[in-house]
């Protein structure tokens, strides 16, 4: 109970400091007229209270729900795309990690392409995925999930490989003494021992898949998700900068929720690894 209080308390404190820093920076730059590194005014840095107020107004006067309600629905839509992408990407990444760890030749052959895949900008890949999957009559949101998976699989593949290859040498010897074969050693020893590595990657991927989903929505012309709102508010930034900031805030909250879900899963799984992974 006390630990929870300390955690919540420190989170609130950090948030207060960040808001304070934002407002202090604004105040100093505006009152001194500094323009380095950029001009500070109500367009580049709206007041925090303006951003929060925007959440409770209709983005277009007289039309539809207030912004926070609209963004809530958009978040659910994007979260679904991201979650499917996360599961796809994490599974692919884990499978690649296992394959590369078990056959050196696969590691030599596959690893360069795995790395190269991430040097291609996602903005260049996204339209290709949308067009290709669209021609197969796959739902548009699923194309977005595939794009999210593209950002998700990489950290998982790299860390799974690393984790599976860092098994304690003596533990492997022990398994061999029990006449364990390669696959028994993999499932009973290497995978459970690699779980901390894999979860470190899943935490990175949890936030990356949200970014992937938001970016993927743009070339798919999907209006229902956070990506659609971001593209839209971007066009009207000079008029209503607070709407874009408010959307960013909500997108960040979705990312944080995903991250916390992975942390929770880690707490449950790593303590009771054999039942879950064997």
């Amino acid at each position, binding site marked *: 109970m006390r630990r929870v209080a300390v955690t919540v308390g420190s989170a609130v404190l950090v948030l207060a400091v960040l808001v304070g820093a934002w407002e202090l920076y604004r105040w100093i730059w505006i009152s001194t007229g500094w323009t380095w590194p950029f001009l500070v005014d109500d367009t580049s840095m709206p007041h925090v209270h303006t951003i929060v107020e925007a959440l409770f107004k209709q983005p277009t006067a007289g039309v539809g729900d207030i912004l926070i309600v609209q963004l809530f629905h958009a978040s659910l839509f994007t979260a679904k795309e991201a979650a499917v992408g996360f599961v796809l990407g994490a599974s692919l990444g884990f499978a690649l990690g296992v394959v590369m760890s078990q056959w050196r030749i696969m590691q030599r052959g596959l690893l360069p392409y795995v790395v190269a895949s991430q040097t291609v900008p996602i903005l260049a890949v996204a339209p290709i995925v949308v067009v290709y999957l669209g021609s197969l009559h796959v739902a548009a949101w699923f194309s977005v999930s595939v794009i999210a998976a593209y950002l998700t699989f990489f950290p998982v593949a790299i860390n799974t490989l690393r984790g599976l290859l860092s098994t*304690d040498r*003596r*533990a492997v*010897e*022990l398994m*061999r*003494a*029990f*006449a*364990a074969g390669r696959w*028994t050693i993999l499932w*009973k*020893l290497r995978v*459970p*021992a690699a*779980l901390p590595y894999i979860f470190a990657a899943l935490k990175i991927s949890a936030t990356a898949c949200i970014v992937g989903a938001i970016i993927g929505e743009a070339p798919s012309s999907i209006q229902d998700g956070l990506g659609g709102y971001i593209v839209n508010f971007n066009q009207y930034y000079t008029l209503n900068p607070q709407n874009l900031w408010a959307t960013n805030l909500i997108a960040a909250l979705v990312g944080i929720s995903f991250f916390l879900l992975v942390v929770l899963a880690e707490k449950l799984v*790593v*303590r*009771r*690894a*054999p039942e879950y992974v064997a």
Partner: protein
Amino acid sequence: MSVQPNVGKSVVEIQGLTKRFERGDVVALQDIDLAIEPGEFISLIGPSGCGKSTLLRIIGDLIEPTSGTVTVNGKPAPRARADHDYGIVFQDSVLFDWRTVAKNVSLPLEMLGWERARRKARVDEMLALVELQGFGDHHPWQLSGGMQMRVAIARALALEPALLLMDEPFGALDEMTRERLNMELLGIWDASKSTVVFVTHSIAEAVFLSTRTVVMSARPGRIANVIEIDLPYPRTSSTREDPHYFELVTRVREALHLGSDLDAVAP
């Protein structure tokens, strides 16, 4: 408790064993001949680099010899490993952190596909043997170093192997814990009727535990001497004050020094 009788054929039989490591062209072991009888407690002692741990791993078929033959229970070493004829304990307990104590002990049983009830019965029996009843649901990190080592011994004995291989199992423990575990190990050895091969660099430990102490010398690793430890069992703390115990400690020490002197003289 008495010295366990030598009956039947050897548990371990090593003939003309040589191990050369390709890298650096090092001769780790040269012309090793050794027969270990059922119920014996054999210590391998020698300076670092004498190949005692390598010899233990060759008996366990974890390393292949360059030449010579090794049989365990009358079978070639690889066959014996496949048949789970031995259990092994390393210097670190090598317990799996993600498993409870009971699940660590049941690991070899799971691998043989034992059903749950049978596993549980054997695990309980093993935990009783190493006096860790009630600790089955603990995780390894909740135990002291000495207790972790007892879990490792229980795991090694779970399949009731004829042979227990131990590679400096108490080397990382403090002297008090070590002496207590030495005593407990003799109890376990007597109760389990197994044969033990025990690698150590402690003369006192080797003499206190063994029926025979094999003294090795380094570069190349050879058997310099085999000393019968004719102290009666059960051995207790008063054994360590027995004048004959001191004589034997002195003999092992001299054999060790003689081994290293030979080494110094040899080209």
